């Protein structure tokens, strides 16, 4: 579904992605680990096409077609949706200005009361993520990009969000990349595999739970110079 090859990306005159290779197949939920500033969010935003992120080398293919020169809305119409970590407040604009209401989904996410507000105005961390999830579900999406759905969110909200992600992933024609920093949401998900990013590169991959346990134990510093390609996490 998604094929990224030798992707080099510049943002604010700085090279932030330095040769990313990543394949995501239909039905896969890929978890992206990495320390602060390693480029996880930048990778998701580059896939979505945000203008700050300029591809200087390499390519992104979605459903066999290069999307590197496509606009954000074109990518969305092709089936890519990004769940923002910190979405901006859009004054005077409501979600209903471009998406229909869905009573059942509103109930599941407890978001009915937020529809009269400007988008993201005065919402707590959990409320923001639930409204983002509402939009992700309502859009016709093939590839979901979840940017830290568990950051700044309490356990109850994490469970609600994870439940929805699991539901989405029941459809094996869909895929997702999920960035998590703290890993709390992993307890409630069944990701296919994990990849580890460091200094703008993917340096390791493996079983998500094992990789997470290893990182928690020894940190990311050990990954530097490690040539195991995921095998050390098997021990």
């Amino acid at each position, binding site marked *: 579904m998604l094929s990224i090859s030798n992707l080099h990306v510049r943002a604010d005159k700085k090279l932030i992605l330095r040769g990313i290779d990543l394949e995501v197949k239909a039905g896969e939920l890929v978890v992206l680990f990495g320390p602060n500033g390693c480029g996880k969010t930048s990778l998701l935003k580059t896939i*979505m096409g*945000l*203008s700050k992120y300029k591809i200087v080398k390499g390519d992104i293919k979605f459903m066999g077609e290069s999307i590197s020169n496509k*606009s*954000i*809305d074109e990518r*969305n*119409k092709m089936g890519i*949706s*990004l769940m*923002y970590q910190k*979405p*901006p407040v*859009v*004054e*005077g*604009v409501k979600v209903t*200005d*471009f*998406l229909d209401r869905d009573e059942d989904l509103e109930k599941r996410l407890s978001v009915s009361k937020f529809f009269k507000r*400007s988008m993201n105005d005065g919402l707590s961390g959990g409320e923001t993520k639930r409204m983002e999830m509402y*939009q992700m579900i309502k*859009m016709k999406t093939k590839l979901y990009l979840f940017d830290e759905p568990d950051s700044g969110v309490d356990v109850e909200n994490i469970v609600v969000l994870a439940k929805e992600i699991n539901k989405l992933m029941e459809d094996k024609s869909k895929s997702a990349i999920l960035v998590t920093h703290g890993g709390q949401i992993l307890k409630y998900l069944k990701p296919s595999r994990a990849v580890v990013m460091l200094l703008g590169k993917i340096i390791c991959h493996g079983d998500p739970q094992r990789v997470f346990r290893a990182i928690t134990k020894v940190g990311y510093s050990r990954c530097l110079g490690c040539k195991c390609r995921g095998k050390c996490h098997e021990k």
Partner: protein
Amino acid sequence: MVVNVEENAMKNKYSKVGLNFENKDVGEFLIDNKDIRICRSNVDGVELTSLKDACEKDTDVQKKKWFLIKKESDEITKKVSKGFDNGYFVRSKKGVKIDGFVQTCLSIGDNGVEQNVHNVVVAGDFSQMHVLTGCLTVGKAKQSQHNGVTEIYVGKGAKLTYTMVHSWSDDTIVRPKTVIRVEEGGQFISNYICIDKVADIKMYPECILVGKKSYANMNSYILARTGSKFDIGAGVQLKGKNSSCLIKARIVSMGGEVVNRGIMEGENGGVKGHLECSGLIVGKGLIHAIPEIKANNDNTDLTHEASVGKVSKDVLEYLQSRGLTASQAMELVLRGFLDINNVSVPKTIAKRISRIPVEKEMTD
């Protein structure tokens, strides 16, 4: 003189300023060039006549004409005084509370017309009324000038909402002059909306809050296109004890020039006021915000804030990530910024504001 015309021919002609003479509302008044075409009140408790007729019949109206605004104030008042065509007189009776709009229309349909109108509005004590005034050029009328004087009296405990929508041709000179007097506990809410191109508008309504606990809320929603010049704003004199006001301007410049003035003068104890001007420049344009505060009492609370900037790229791209094109995202952001949702306006106006056309280069 009231001239009878086929009202069906007017269907939709005035909808761009939110007026609809097809369905009878609280009352309708239409002056075309210099002649009154429609003048009627459809409900008890609201008088609607021409100002000339009202002055002939009622000495109180005579006293109110040229009371708040002096004939010799400036060139415009002198012109209106000497070349007075006519105008409307609206009065809600004491205690009458009415839903719906008193629709008044000041229209120019011919080339080179200089229209001089004078209006008087009276909201009787404890009454409630909404006057919707649409001012426009129709057809291909060119090189015209609209000079208007409006004196508004808001009685004790009364609430008057006064919404003015302008849609002029791109070479019309527009000079309205308005003064409002609000008595004890009275409320005056004004909304000024102009989203069409105009040559030059100078407009600066002044509200005098004479009564204690009187209140004014004056809002302006402006879209200034290339070639348009606006010198607009509002002033409030807070003379009554514990009187308060909110002056708000939302301005989008798409190449037009806007000077937005606002002044609050606190002249009694316990007065409160806030003045807010927010501007967005899309592509090129000019917005000059001039907020002023004056107080002569230590028990006043007057504040102001002003900001001018561009549409946030993050916001536009966020909406694009929801599938909206760049133009659609810009349209939505501008509509949201103009924040007309909370204003009671006819659907035709709300719909027009929801579809502000954005040229492609403005989103690049």
